[in-house]
């Protein structure tokens, strides 16, 4: 039973990543009403750009990380400008399909530029395991948990204490009314893409030392992040974080205690159950106006 601690700790570390990706989904959903299925590709870009700046252009680690976040954010910005904004009159389903197309395009370009090989990225501070009771963690796991926590706090501050954050929340409630009181809704949509691509790339960067990176890592991570967002009811706050952690821990426990063959199945069974039973999310109150 002492293994439970290890399963949980591993699960929390993975879950923190799912949470970061999940919040990215929620931010765009709240600003635009669409699910951005290219979210996973920004995660991939974060990891692979870090590799690119670090290994090929020989930047120091911190420089590479900053450049990678900047690069991925720029991609997010371009994506909104070139693929989302021109379709102003499109229905949400059109936009969702555009994001799927965008994700295939980004993945394909990454494959052409960086090849099909997997690349490794060094840990931020060594690989010597840290013992916690009978369980062990890597310093990188602490980085993951720390950075996730910091990002969530910043996120909270942004949405509740800054004028832009409040404006974005207003757009989420009612874009038309927000427009009427003078909020530039289009700018808020752009901002939502910028924030979520930055967060996605950050998630990709902090997990890359553990999982390595390749042009196609974004697909699965994106889907898991999407599960976390659904469990948390597409909010931008704590419930998605809890959703992500829950998913990570359940996956880890399931793989350890039941069977490793069902690891991915667990995530998607939870996703389906939530969609069937509590489509408003595990913690959300049923809202009638948001279908």
């Amino acid at each position, binding site marked *: 039973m002492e293994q439970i601690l290890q399963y949980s700790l*591993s699960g929390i570390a993975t879950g923190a990543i799912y949470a970061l990706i999940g919040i990215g989904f929620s931010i765009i959903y709240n600003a635009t009403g669409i699910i951005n299925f290219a979210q996973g590709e920004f995660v991939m870009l974060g990891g692979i750009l870090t590799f690119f700046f670090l290994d090929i252009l020989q930047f120091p680690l911190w420089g590479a990380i900053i450049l990678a976040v900047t690069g991925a954010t720029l991609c997010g910005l371009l994506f909104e400008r070139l693929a989302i904004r021109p379709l102003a009159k499109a229905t949400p389903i059109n936009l969702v399909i555009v994001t799927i197309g965008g994700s295939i395009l980004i993945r394909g370009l990454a494959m052409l530029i960086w090849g099909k090989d997997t690349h490794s990225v060094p840990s931020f501070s060594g690989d010597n395991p840290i013992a916690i009771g009978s369980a062990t963690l890597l310093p990188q796991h602490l980085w993951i948990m720390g950075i996730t926590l910091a990002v969530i706090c910043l996120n909270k501050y942004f949405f509740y204490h800054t004028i832009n954050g409040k404006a974005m929340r207003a757009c989420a409630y009612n874009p038309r009314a927000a427009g009427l009181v003078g909020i530039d809704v289009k700018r808020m949509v752009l901002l939502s893409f910028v924030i979520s691509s930055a967060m996605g790339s950050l998630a990709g960067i902090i997990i890359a030392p553990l999982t*390595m990176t390749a042009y196609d890592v974004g697909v699965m991570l994106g889907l898991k992040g999407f599960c976390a967002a659904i469990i948390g009811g597409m909010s931008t706050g704590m419930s998605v974080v809890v959703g992500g952690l829950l998913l990570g821990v359940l996956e880890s426990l399931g793989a350890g205690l039941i069977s490793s063959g069902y*690891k991915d199945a667990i995530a998607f069974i939870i996703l389906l159950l939530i969609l069937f039973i509590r489509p408003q999310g595990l913690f959300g109150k049923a809202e009638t106006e948001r279908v």
Partner: protein
Amino acid sequence: MGHRLLSYLLAAVFMLSGASAFAAPTIKIGALFSVTGPAAFLGEPERNTAVMVVDQINKAGGIKGKKIELIVYDTNGDATKAKQLVNKLIKNDKVSAIIGPSTTGESMAIINDVEKAGVPLISCAAGIKITEPVKKWVFKTAQNDSLAVARIYEYLQKNRLNKVAILTVSDGFGQSGREQLKAQAKKYGISVVSDDTYGPKDTDMSPQLTKIRGSKAQALICWGTNPGPAVVAKNARQLGLKMPVFMSHGVSSKKFIQLAGDAAEGLKLPSGKVIVADLLPASDPQKKSLMAFVNDYKKHYRAEGDHFGGHAWDAVMLLKGAIERGGDTPAAIRDQLEKTRQFHGIGGTFTFTSQDHAGLGKDAFVLVEVKNKDWVIVK
């Protein structure tokens, strides 16, 4: 103007005569490799090697005075495409023999076609079912998984480690390994006490390893291709797994050491001899072929020759031997291939018989260990 016209005419005449000079009888050999697509890491070195070796043979005067004409088609790793292209090779190009395809799926798809047409095929894929049961016209050069498993189990038996945990990837390669690991265990007095899998794209295997750490296993065998085993190595190091860890021949490339970094130190795995060619004793019968292949490949392509290129090297050289002994009709090539004895190639020492079209023994693999980011041979 008149001069220019005349020179064009002359050029045309020269070209025509040149073409007829080259139309001396050649031996046509077809090749199907997945040069692009998901299996490009197999097909590309195979194509490169085949082109290189055929060039060398032709420069040295061909086989019995006849040049080889190599016709290479890219299958994209797609079995349907392989089937179309094999028919093109047989019907349009009228080749005497075919090498490739790169993957087991493609090889299985075209077996019927070559059997019906009566054209010898030397597959470069590893699947055991390609040559088992034996098909009259089909041979292969890649080593069977069963030989790699036998190599590990032999070592375990010698070191009295008889309880193993296996962790295999849930794709074709891992499944075949898992079957072999379970089937052969008994023969070596080994019991599999923990049997887990992971997905090819999984990013964290610590739950499986935590379970294995808590089991009675004395050794861990992980069966997969990059990047999964590198993640397993990292997770194992994180969890402080004390038992010796074995990998499969699926990761016997420098890329694995690069991915796993420090976590690769001390891992053991069965491997073809290419990656340790320079470490082999001079008494090794394969040494000469191996060094020739490794050096030539480096000179031609400025890259390390690998096992996959080796499969194509073996295929071309086996054909060369057969044609030298018999002749270049498909039937003669087939009969002579089957009579190949003790051919020291890259993948191992081949001896084909009418019951064995894979031709290799356990000595095709050596057990290697990662030390200081490089390979050493485990005695």
